[in-house]
């Protein structure tokens, strides 16, 4: 009796979902296959579908002949720095927004929402001029600051919704027991916020790691994050697709793995943040 309905389900649900999953995965899968095909074979016969033609040749070249590991380190420093800066200023701000009612609260919240809507191009040009003046161009700190323009407002909103979900009665109880506001924040609210802080931090890490335009404009020579480095893998006379694909796969890996690890919690927070404010 169960069979027809299972069959029906497969036709109307499983199959369409499979098609969409394939559509979502195919381009990246193709990139992985390209990276596994040695350049000679790629030029002669195209991408090798069967494992027989695969080798790690492109990856070996990537690590030995280019400075890709250094670029990964640059990206790591910038992403971690942005995460630290963003979280450090956003935690207290989020606490203030969710626990206090004060003059200008709405305006200040609006301000943080507004920043995220500004076209990046409007910021990139003046930031370039300003950073050139104060000598921050092509430094890790400069890029951390630039990425913080995106990270701080996002973190403030995301964390405000997390703190809002923690019952006020908890910190009130702690204060009745003689804790000051700040002690209550540190001892009661902060531990409960930890899941929110972790997923916000990871999201900041991912966006900073994937960021391209700031990295290209404000960095590029001494400090060259992976997103910029991948582009330089394009050969001189013709595009070296194999090497480029290997760089793209390695460069995309850290952010993608992190994303898959925390996606459930992240999506919960983001949809909540976006739908409910």
């Amino acid at each position, binding site marked *: 009796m169960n069979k027809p309905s299972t069959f029906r*389900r497969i036709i109307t649900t499983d199959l369409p979902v499979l098609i969409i999953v394939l559509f979502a995965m195919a381009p990246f899968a193709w990139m992985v296959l390209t990276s596994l095909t040695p350049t000679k074979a790629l030029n002669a016969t195209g991408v090798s579908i069967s494992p027989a033609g695969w080798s790690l040749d492109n990856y070996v070249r990537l690590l030995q002949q280019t400075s890709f590991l250094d670029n990964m380190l640059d990206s790591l420093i910038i992403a971690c720095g942005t995460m630290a800066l963003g979280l450090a200023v956003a935690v207290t701000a989020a606490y203030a927004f969710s626990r206090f009612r004060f003059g200008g609260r709405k305006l200040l919240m609006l301000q943080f929402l507004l920043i995220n809507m500004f076209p990046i191009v409007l910021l990139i040009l003046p930031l370039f001029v300003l950073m050139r003046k104060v000598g921050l161009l092509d430094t890790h700190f400069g890029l951390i600051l630039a990425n913080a323009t995106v990270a701080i407002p996002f973190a403030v909103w995301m964390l405000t919704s997390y703190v809002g979900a923690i019952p006020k009665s908890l910190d009130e109880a702690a204060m009745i027991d003689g804790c000051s506001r700040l002690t209550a924040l540190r001892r009661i609210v902060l531990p409960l916020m930890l899941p929110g802080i972790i997923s916000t931090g990871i999201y900041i890490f991912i966006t900073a790691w994937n960021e391209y335009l700031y990295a290209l404009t404000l960095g590029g020579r001494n400090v060259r994050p992976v997103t910029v480095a991948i582009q330089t893998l394009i050969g001189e006379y013709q595009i070296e*697709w194999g090497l480029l694909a290997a760089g793209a796969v390695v460069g995309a890996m850290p952010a993608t793995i992190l994303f*898959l690890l925390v996606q459930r919690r992240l999506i919960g927070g983001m949809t909540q943040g976006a739908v409910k404010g």
Partner: protein
Amino acid sequence: MTTAGNDRMTATTASPSTDVTIATPWRVRLMPYMLLAPAVLVTVFIVFFPMVQALATSFYDLILWRPNASRFVGFGNYVKLFADPVFWTALGNTAIWIGLTVPLQMGLGLVTALLLNREFPWRGLARGLIIIPWALPSVVIALMWRWIYDPNTGILNDILIYLSVVQSAVPWLADPDLALYAIIATLTWQGFPFFAVMILAGLQGIPKSHYEAASIDGASTWRQFVHITLPGIAPVLATAGLLRVIWVANSMDVIFVMTGGGPGYATHTLPLYAFVRARQNLDFGYGTTIAVTFTILLGAVVALYLARTMREVER
């Protein structure tokens, strides 16, 4: 705001009661501002100060490698902008870019969300895999699709020729009539997962009992969709749609890496034009003018979104 002002008034007038009670209310009153100070100060320095600078720059004729030749031109850049044919091309492209990308992303996202809302064994896995495009760096996405679209060795042409859809290889990104649409397809691929997860969250908020009641009344699946599902997810669609219009309008990294705005000006959108102009000629005065104009145009959409979101925060 007025109530807060009144509170402050009463606090000051009530202050001469005892020393202890004065000290605490003031400290408590200042506390939120102290807590907010770091975030606000940093954003003032890295966002608002540069923005004011940008606005000022747009009134100057500033070529970055000739800083001494910089001079005030008033609205000169803006006058020049409205007479610039590339500006109007870029404006048109931006309209097509937003007008096609967002509905396509939303449509595909809606279908995906409806499917993912059904019961099937590997639902969690499917949900995880579908989001992958969204997590990839945009530079990787752009290069990946350049490789797929490649006229000589790209897989897309191979497939289409094999299926006899086209007779000879199509130069997707080199044809001025096709390039913009090819990039729109890429961005649709990148952005539909966002809509899918947002809409899915909305769908899961609709009580099952509504559907049960409707099917007892004999409503068809289509009628259930129109009368229960659509109204249920309308707020999500509106919020996600507005948010996406802003993001899609702003995003230029994928176009920049895929075509750099070419061939000719075929894939120039306004932010890209501003960026390319400032980057190639170091013509920061004019580049900033384009950026400011674009921001003002986008402002209408932003205002709509802010009004929506702040209404929710009002509580």
